[in-house]
Every structure is written in C-alpha cells, then in structure tokens.
C-alpha cells in the first residue's frame, strides 16, 4: 500500500497526523475532575483559578472617564477608577464613601463638602489629593466631549447642558479645594440627591492631575482650554490609558478582542478577589455558550432568545428577576414631516395613508394603546422576563407609583376610541403606514407585529407594515427629520432618579418627546417643579401627577421594563444586583471564585 503513495501523499498524512497529535493531548489536558450531573448535562469543570473571565458583546469605546457614555467602557472604568461616593450595594438613595470619607450638605449655600480619603495611591504611584478631585471634574467639563456624559455635571452645577456659553470662571467656581475637602456648589437645592447619584457614575471618576498633565492632557489653565475643548475622539491620552485608584489596573487592551485587568497591589482596601479580570468580546452566541459550559468563561451574556438553550443546565448559577432601570416603548409622532416621506402612504386619511397630524388626535393614540397586548408581549417576547410599566417612571425609581393608571389590552376600548378618532373618518376609511424598528432587534419587531395584527383584527382597513431599518443609517436620519411615524426605541437610566426618565419622554427638549412632537411649556414647568421640590412627600406627589399626565396624554406605548438574568458558573459567589453598576457581571470587587 505504501508503495502506491506519492511524496505528496506522505506529506499530507504526516500533516494530518501532526494535527491529531496536537489535538489528542488536549483531550486529556483539562486535568479537572469531571462528574456527570444527574440532570442538565455534564459538570462544568473549574478552570482558571484566580481569574474571572467574562464573554460579552460590547467593545469599550473609550477609557476616558470624561468621555465614556457606553456600557462597555463604563464597566471597565468602574473597575479601574473610583468615585467620591458609591451606591450602598443595591440602594439607589444610600451611599458609601469611596474616595471621600465624609460628605456634608449645606442648604444655606447649596454646597456639598467632601472630605478626601488619605493614603490612597494611583496605579502609577501618585497620591490622591483634593486637587485631583477638582481637576477631574473641571477637566470633564472643559473637555465636554461631543455625545459625552458631561451634561449630567453641568445641569446640577450650572443649570446648563454644555460648556458652550460658559466661561472657565463659571466652571471653576463650582468646585473648589478647601484644605482636605472639596466643595461643590450646586445651582439649586433640588439637585441635592441627584448630585450624589450623578457622581457615582464613571463620569465622576477621579484621575491623577499630575499624571494627566505630564501626558499632555489639559494643564488646568484657562489658556489651555481651546486645545482640549471637544477634542476629537481618540486623541486624549486617557482615551487608551488608565490610571485610577481602583482594585484593578489596566493590563492590556487588545482592541476588539479582549480587555485585561490585573490586581492593584497597593489598593487602599482589601486586595481584589481576582488576580485578573478578563473581558472577551465574543459576538457569536454558540461560542459564548460552549465556553460557559466548558468552564472557559465564568460569565457570558445570554440574550433572551437563547435562555431556553441553557435553562436546563444544572451546573450554572442562575439569578433571575433583576429589575433593570430601562424601558422599551413605541412612540407615536404627532407631527410627522410629510414631504419625501415614504412611510405614510398617500399622506391623506383616505385608507391608503395617514396625514402628518394623524396621531395628534388622542383617540387614535388611546386606540393604539388599548390595542397592544401587553401580557402577550411580556410572555412571548420577553419570556416572562419583564413587567409592563405604566409610564416612563419605571419600578425602582424614586417617584414610581405602583397604582398609577395604566392601559391594558382591551380591543373593545380600542375600537371605541378608534371609532371616535378624526370624527369617525379613521374607522370609515382606515389607514395605512409603516412602523419602524431598528433591524436586528427582533423583540421590537415582534411587539410591533402584535400591535399591527390587533389593529387589523379590529378593522381590516387598519394596515400597519412593520419594517426594520439600520439604527444609524436608517432610523436616525428619519427620526431627526421627523419622518418616523411609529417607532420603537429603548432608554436606560444614567442615574436612578425619575427625572432621568421623565425629561427624555415628556419634555419639549427630550430625546424621544421632541421627535414625537410631544410636550409643552406647561409640562416642562411641571417637570422642573417636580425635580426642584425639596419636600420628599411633595416631590412624590408631583411625580405621581406626571404619571397621570402621561396616562391622560397617552403619547406612547410602554411595552416593557426588562427584568434581567445573570448566568455564572457555580464557582462564582457574592453577586448582588445594582442596576447602576455598568456591565452585566456585577460588583466584581465583592465577588469571588472558588471550586467549593
């Protein structure tokens, strides 16, 4: 037989044998004790002692705390940098000191005074000082990255949304060093709680002033501001370099692949529980799933649609019913731009289209709200991992009213309203338009289809086509030109206060309300009054009032507030939930990993 093989044949055989030889030892390489579980498949082996490996889908955009406004960046910043105070475990209104040992509110002069912790070291060796704190906040404000998070600092300090229109003196006056203290002067007492919540975010991280200046960042003077104001993305030194005081320091950022942190040995608290924290970017679900089951990942992101695939695995730590501070809604544009709009049919209420002000009639909106099957959406789309919020003030926020009026699925009432809409013309002639979701988001698509089918069931002249468009290149240009008719979008909280949800949904300047032409000066005043109300009882009443206004106005369909899940291997311990901790893996400093 061998005589019949050519040289080439032998080369191929040798190559294949080599591969087999490489692969074979790997089969026995795990060295882990494997035991078969009675149910739910084989046991997951314990691997990578002292290392936490998570597989997720978000690549950090930036490591600069003053620029970061995405979840993936925020997660890494949260592990490396520290803020003055932090949420006390899961609480939204209770705080513990991090880089501040004490904090005192003075209502007379509207100041928060923070006493800075002594003996704290930055990863590069510098000592924490009050000047670092002052510099960190001032730098964030004068940098004011486009599309960044700094608006959250401007609002409580200066009742502004951006640096434009302000002077350095304005900014400088809001944060001052006083001995070992740092004093923030707020613009209004209504921001007292919001300020503490705001500075718990990554944008409140403290950086090392000397180190920053030495590496070409803003030098702290007014003269240098033009060189750093709204710097182009990627050009700040902190964009790709980190130097915090947190339990882990940057080891390696392999862009698009993985992000590695290593334990900081001079940390001021107990040493971090993991030698390394590795966050790998793995887009493919099957790869993430197999890695979790093989023990190569301690935590993976599980999209809702894949829950059934691992629901039955016995060897996993599953944590359920985590109330996320987020909401998904379907918005109805009350003043649609009709010119060059392909999504409104004829643009007339003639059965083959809709006019631009179709949704300005409350009966149309209420008809739609009653036509949406909320329970089916939660059960079939969210797989029972969500609740229906009555308004943008979702459960978990200060101001949430569990007894608030809410719309339920009721086709009879939907019919009643739609018969009354536009003096009966809607019922008689029908309508046709296109509803838009961001392509790839099958949950939003399914929600829209539920609505469309129910409307058709009420009257077969009601025709809603559901179309997916790419978010960036498709939906946003239409949104900004007011051409979207009915569209689905979601909101996640920046800080756990009702104002952070009411403003984008109900104000004339809100991210969503603006593009559905909803809101009024009067409503803006009510929102502001609620925000600035100092008496907690009164404030609660005002937020309850806003929820009632939302119900009466019926501007959008509140589809769901997700309740999340987390999936770890059984070797991970200590998880607790706080929706404000960026990322999904949880409070890693308080967690641990052991084979027991």
């Amino acid at each position: 037989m061998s005589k019949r093989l050519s040289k080439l044949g032998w080369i191929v055989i040798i190559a294949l044998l080599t591969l087999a030889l490489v692969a074979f030892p790997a089969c026995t390489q795990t060295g882990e004790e494997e035991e078969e579980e009675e149910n739910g498949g084989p046991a997951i082996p314990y691997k990578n002692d002292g290392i936490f490996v998570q597989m997720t889908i978000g690549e950090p955009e930036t490591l600069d705390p003053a620029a970061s406004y995405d979840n993936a960046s925020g997660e890494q910043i949260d592990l490396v940098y520290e803020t003055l105070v932090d949420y006390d475990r899961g609480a939204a209104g209770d705080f513990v000191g991090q880089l501040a040992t004490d904090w005192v509110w003075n209502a007379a002069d509207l100041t928060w005074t923070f006493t800075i912790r002594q003996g704290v070291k930055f990863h590069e060796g510098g000592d924490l000082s009050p000047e670092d704190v002052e510099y960190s906040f001032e730098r964030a404000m004068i940098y004011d990255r486009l599309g960044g998070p700094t608006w959250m600092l401007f609002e409580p300090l200066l009742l502004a949304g951006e640096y434009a229109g302000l002077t350095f003196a304005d900014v400088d006056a809001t944060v001052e060093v006083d001995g070992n203290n740092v004093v923030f002067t707020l613009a209004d007492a209504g921001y007292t709680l919001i300020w503490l919540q705001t500075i718990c975010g990554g944008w409140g991280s403290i950086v090392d002033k000397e180190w920053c200046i030495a590496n070409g960042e803003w030098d702290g003077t007014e003269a240098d501001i033009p060189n750093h104001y709204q710097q182009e993305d990627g050009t700040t030194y902190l964009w790709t370099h980190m130097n915090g005081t947190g339990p882990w320091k940057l080891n390696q950022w392999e862009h698009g692949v993985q992000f590695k942190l290593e334990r900081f040995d001079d940390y001021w608290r107990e040493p971090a529980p993991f030698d390394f924290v590795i966050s790998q970017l793995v887009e493919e679900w099957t790869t993430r799933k197999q890695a979790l089951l093989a023990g190569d990942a301690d935590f993976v992101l599980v999209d809702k649609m894949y829950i059934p695939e691992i629901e039955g695995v016995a060897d996993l730590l599953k944590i359920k019913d985590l109330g996320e501070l987020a909401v998904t809604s379907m918005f109805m544009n009350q003043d649609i731009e009709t010119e060059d709009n392909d999504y409104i049919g004829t643009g007339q209420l003639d059965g083959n289209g809709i006019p631009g002000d179709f949704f300005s009639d409350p009966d149309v909106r209420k008809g739609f709200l009653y036509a949406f099957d909320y329970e089916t959406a939660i059960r079939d789309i969210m797989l029972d991992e969500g609740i229906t919020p009555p308004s943008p003030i979702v459960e978990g926020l200060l101001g949430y009213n569990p007894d608030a009026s809410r719309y339920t699925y009721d086709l009879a009432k939907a019919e009643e309203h739609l018969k009354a809409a536009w003096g009966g013309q809607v019922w008689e002639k029908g309508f046709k338009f296109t509803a838009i979701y961001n392509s790839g988001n099958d949950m939003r698509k399914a929600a829209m289809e539920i609505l469309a089918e129910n409307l058709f069931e009420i009257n077969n002249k009601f025709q809603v086509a559901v179309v997916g468009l790419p978010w960036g290149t498709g939906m946003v240009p239409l949104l900004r030109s007011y051409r979207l008719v009915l569209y689905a979008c979601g909101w996640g909280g920046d800080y756990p206060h009702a104002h952070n949800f009411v403003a984008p949904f109900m104000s004339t300047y809100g991210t969503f309300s603006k593009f559905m032409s909803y809101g009024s000066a009067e409503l803006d005043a009510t929102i502001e009054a609620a925000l600035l109300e100092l008496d907690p009882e009164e404030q609660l009443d005002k937020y309850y009032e806003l929820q009632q206004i939302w119900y009466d106005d019926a501007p959008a369909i509140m589809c769901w507030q997700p309740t999340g899940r987390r999936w770890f291997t059984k070797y991970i311990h200590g998880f607790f939930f706080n929706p404000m901790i960026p990322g999904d893996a949880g409070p890693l400093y308080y967690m641990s990993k052991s084979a027991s």
Partner: protein
Amino acid sequence: MELRSYIIRRLLLLIPVLLGVTLFIFGITMMFSPTQRAMLYVRDAKQLADLPAVIERYGLDQPFVVQYGTWLGQVFTGNLGYSKVVSQPVSDAIIQFLPATLELAIFATPLIILLGILLGTTAAAHKDRPLDHGTRVAAILGWSLPTFWLGLMLLMIFYGFLRGFLPPGRLSVQIDLLVNAAPFIRYTHINTIDAILNLDGPVFLDALRHLVLPVVTLSVVNVAFIMRLMRSSMLESLGKGYILTARAKGLAERVVVNKHARRNALIPVITVSGYVFAALANGVVITETIFNFKGIGWWAWQSAINLDISSVLGFALFNAVLFVLVNLVVDVLYTRVDPRVRLGQGVQ
C-alpha cells in the same frame, strides 16, 4: 525583462490602483448623508442632540473633494485615520489584526493546496472510477457547505461535545497571560512563530490547538476548488504526447502521473493558490467570528457595517497592496515552475 525592473514596474502600478480604489470607496460612502455617517460617533439615542456638532467637528458636510483631499493629505503624512470601531489608529488596527489572519492563512493555505493537489491528482488518475466520483462528491459537498454551519458544527462537536477539546480563540487564558508577560517576546504576534522563536513548546501546542478548527473549516470549504482545477489540469496533461512517450518507455504509472504529468499540471494551480492565500490573508469574516479568531476580516466587516470610513479605506489600501504583491510573487514563481515563461512576456 530583468526581475528588478519588473518588480519596480509592478510596484509603481500600485499608485494608480490605490488612488482608484480609495476614490471609488470614498465615492460610495459619500452616498450616505452626513447624518448617517455621523452615527459612527453616536452610539445611543441619548447622544442624538450632539449630531449637528459632530457633523461640523469632523467636517462630514464638506464637499467630496475636500473630504477626500483631507484624508489623502493625512495618508501622505503616514496617518491612515482613526478606526472608531476598535478605538485605535487604522495603522495600529492593521498591525494588530493582521497576525491572526496571517496565521490562519499560513496554516490553511498549504493544507488546502496540498490536499487539493493530492485529491485532484488522484481523481484524474482514476478518471470515471469510484475514486474520482468519490472525490468529486466530497469536493461538491465541501464547496457547498455554508462556512457558518460547518464552523458551528465543528465547534459544537469538538469544543462543546468533547468538553473543551479544541477551543476557540487564539490562546487559552493562562497561556495568553504568559505570552504577554516577560520573558516571552512577541516578535511577530503570530503565536506559533513566536512560540518557536521563544522555544516555548506549551505555547506552540496551545496555539496549534486553537488553530485546528478554523484551519479545518477553511480547508474543507476551499480545497474543492483547487482539487477540481488540479483534476482538469491533470487530465489535460495526461492527454499530452510526452505522457504517451513516458508510458511507452515502460515507466511505472505512479512515476508518469506524479513526475511527468503533475509538474506541468501545477501551473494554473500556482496562480489560484496565490489568490487563495491572498483571499485568506484578506480576512475570513465568518471563520474569524465563529472561532473568535479576530483578524483583519472581522475588523473590516465591523468597519463596513458601522460605516467607519477611515477603517474601510485603510483596509482597501491593505487589500490592494496585498493583491499586487501576491500577483508579483505568482509571476515570479511561474518562471521557476515553467522555464518557458519570461517576466512581462508570457510563454516563449
């Protein structure tokens, strides 16, 4: 023509090629509105308010000529722009992602070519017999299999079912920490080569173990093409007069096929092999994604779907250079395989 002047001429040809390619791609991206292109900088609905300022800041509403000119000016100063999708300069992104793709290509290309030649030769030598039919069916099957399906199946069997046997990624977690710390030196960032240069057996074996599934996936899908080409080329050679002469001289069939016919049949395979390598080195999106073997294909794909124009242009430049160089190497190889071929003049 002298080899040196031929190479210089071909390299000079790169300039118009690069200008043409980048102009074409830039032109296509300009069909998107400034708002659409600005979305690269705005990830969330919360940032929409800053869109007009983003457009102004990055000059996205400038005329085509101004934007292209600005980009070209940057390129001449060695700045290929910034890759937003991976938050680093485009040149750094190419340097980071190329080694993974090259490693795949380096291992997959020889396997594809050797298997293709072997199977093609065997099929031709057994024309219309069961072996020929068998290889043909196997080739069609391999060619028809969707890469993502094959990749996922292999992953589920050899990683999932066999409990971490052949894992995805480029290195295991512990080994990865090892190679990124002293005393290991990363000469090329191609893990297998670096392991050899560092004389580190465990790293080499680990890297090889991670290569098995993506390389097998690429090979199964691509070997059919070479095999079919080799078969037809072999059949043509086997029909030539010198083969008849060789057989008439009483040479063994094995010698006739492997020495006389195959050498001449290799010429078209060399051309295609160059392109196979170039195509693999150009990035294989699905394989890189499924096996988490992030290379230049994954990066280019991410850039394209996010309208990251600087990255797309940078990739196009890289691609054009790669194909010109591969063409050059193939041309030079011709002269070695077939002495009748002269550079720039074809067969004499």
